[in-house]
């Protein structure tokens, strides 16, 4: 069952140079513009970015959920070696909710409000496996218990509105887990939750990945959540991955000015009473974006060289940065001119 035992090195998902564009009346929106990453079995990848950075569209592209006027214009998505970037709708239906599942930010809208939880869970199971209704119910009950819902046999008969926000998100996580997926894409699943509930959800997810070898892509705007959960991180800005590496690399030794700005923006005990290092300006509109480094207008290190597209430079396994003027190791960030 575990993919790890078959072939230790084959990643569960491998994305190469993915480009998803939206062709709107006012122009082309390059939501995802040349994104590459891979996730190994049991690995947790955090994708961090602000709104409009393309992090959600990346996840949607994997699931084949991009609707007109958007489409995947280039690149490949290989799921366990199989190319699914332009797979048929039939094949995608087999994968969705089966081998690949997704958890959305808002469980209230992700669950069907007029169907009981058991109906929805049995449906999910029976769409992918040939099992009887009774077996499916039993499996659903077991899964609800797993994600920490008390008295699951009773709660199965409830409608989504009868659950609290945290419980509802757990139900939607339970549904994502039903068919023992190899890959879970979680799109800001804890953003709307309280810290205590968030901790519970993180706990369950983490346990699952460790026990079952499930790969997880955790999309979020919150670097602090990623710090506690993920193995590696991709930082996205304006449709591109500007920096990637292991959690420790990114947080202790960030090189892209945007990553540095993002980390400096996070309030903590060390920043009390002082001003935060802020990144001036706002995230650019992705509509008709100018060529060159998208961050240059907010960047304090930008030079005329940044009018060109910066290449992705790689150093060390899985460690990349896309910048002409990366902050090198040992350089003092405070003196780098932030918030001067």
């Amino acid at each position, binding site marked *: 069952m575990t993919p790890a035992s078959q072939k230790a090195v084959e990643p569960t998902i491998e994305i190469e140079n993915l480009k998803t564009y939206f062709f709107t009346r006012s122009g082309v929106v390059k939501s995802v513009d040349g994104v590459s990453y891979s996730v190994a079995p049991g690995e947790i990848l955090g994708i961090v970015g*602000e*709104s409009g950075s393309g992090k959600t569209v990346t996840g949607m592209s994997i699931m084949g959920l991009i609707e007109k006027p958007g489409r995947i214009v280039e690149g490949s998505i290989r799921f366990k070696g199989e190319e699914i970037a332009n797979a048929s709708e039939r094949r995608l239906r087999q994968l969705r909710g089966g081998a690949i599942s997704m958890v959305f930010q808002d469980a209230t809208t992700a669950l069907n409000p007029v169907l009981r939880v058991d109906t929805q869970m049995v449906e999910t199971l029976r769409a992918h496996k040939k099992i009887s209704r009774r077996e499916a119910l039993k499996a659903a009950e077991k899964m609800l218990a797993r994600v*920490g819902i008390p008295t699951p046999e009773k709660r199965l008969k409830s409608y989504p509105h009868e659950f*609290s*926000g*945290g*419980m509802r998100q757990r139900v939607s996580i339970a549904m994502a887990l039903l068919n023992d997926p190899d890959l879970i894409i979680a799109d800001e699943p804890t953003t709307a939750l*309280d*810290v*205590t*509930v*968030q*901790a*519970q959800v*993180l*706990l369950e997810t*983490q346990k699952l990945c460790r026990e079952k070898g499930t790969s997880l892509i955790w999309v979020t*705007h*919150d*670097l*602090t*959540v990623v*710090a*506690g*959960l993920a193995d590696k991180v991709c930082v996205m800005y304006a449709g591109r991955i500007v920096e990637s590496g292991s*959690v*420790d690399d990114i*947080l202790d030794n960030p090189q892209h000015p945007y990553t540095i*700005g*993002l*980390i*400096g*923006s*996070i*309030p*903590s*005990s060390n*920043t*009390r009473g002082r*001003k*935060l*290092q*802020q*990144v*001036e300006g*706002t*995230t650019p509109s992705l509509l008709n974006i100018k060529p060159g480094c998208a961050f240059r207008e907010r960047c304090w290190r930008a030079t005329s060289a940044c009018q060109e597209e910066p290449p992705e430079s790689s150093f060390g396994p899985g460690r990349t940065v896309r910048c002409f003027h990366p902050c090198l190791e040992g350089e003092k960030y405070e003196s780098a001119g932030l918030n001067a």
Partner: protein
Amino acid sequence: MRSTETTPAARPLVRLKNVSKKFTRELDLAARLAQKLGVDINEETVHAVNGINLDIHKGEVVGLVGESGCGKSTLGRVVSGLLPASTGEIEFDGETIDSATSRKRPKDLALRIQMIFQDPYASLNPRMRVGEIISEAPRVHRIVPPNELSAYLDKVMEQCGLDPAYKSRYPHQFSGGQRQRIAIARTLAVKADFIVCDEIVSALDVSIQAQILNLLLDLKQELDLTTLFISHDLGVVEHVSDRVAIMYLGRMVEFAPTEMLFSNPQHPYTRSLLEEVPSLDKRNMNYSAIEGEIPSPFDPPPGCQFHPRCPFATAECRTVAPELQVLESGHTFACHHPQGEIAESQ
């Protein structure tokens, strides 16, 4: 600029005395009929805010933290005058503005208390131009003479980091962060000196959130603003606040200067909250969740309301509600077993 250092003896700018807010769900016709026929049916009452005492001094930022449903927003609305308190008194600058006999506020005092809301997409009138949004209140209340209004508007906008050239634009032409700046400008335009901020950075991106927090810090220093900062984000609260209050199910469970609260929390609820805050330094966390969920406020547990989830709860906690205790340092908390001492020794 007045000194921001306040001695404990100084008169607080805002004083809440035993403020409570109840919401009652009215019975429908059938239930009322049944009640008349002698069936034992009572209206359901939620104590959204239950007996809060709080002093806020001039120039101070008080953080108010709690999970959703703990009553922190309701308290903010009561303080700002959007909701009348059910019982209790509110004093502002030495005058009682909200009491059992009168829930009406004098206009000049009401103007000095303003509120900023979480969602800048909903709190600005989409059909008004930004200039009108900001200058309407100063014009109506004659805060500046009509001929100086335009210059005053420019000044307030600049103070909040907005380009005065944008004053004839509509709110939808601005990003979330800029809209929140407009909302801040609107409160400053009436020369408010006490601002209730209800989750004002929660809807913003991290880099924009930092800009707004920096703006608040600037304004605090410039104008000696006093702020009640409501948020569920402990990181943000720790960053901005001088003192922090923790609420649970409508009651205040702990209140202390920020450093003290974060370094030496007394209440078990505060301690578990702090443990669960994700931070950049906590890598590969092994999350240990607080057991259970917030109980329904319609039917709060007796005694200490946290006892069903508390690892140190004893028989006493199940029956007797703990009183607020004050340590010498000004650290206030409501718990029978602070830091679990007694429970551990038993």
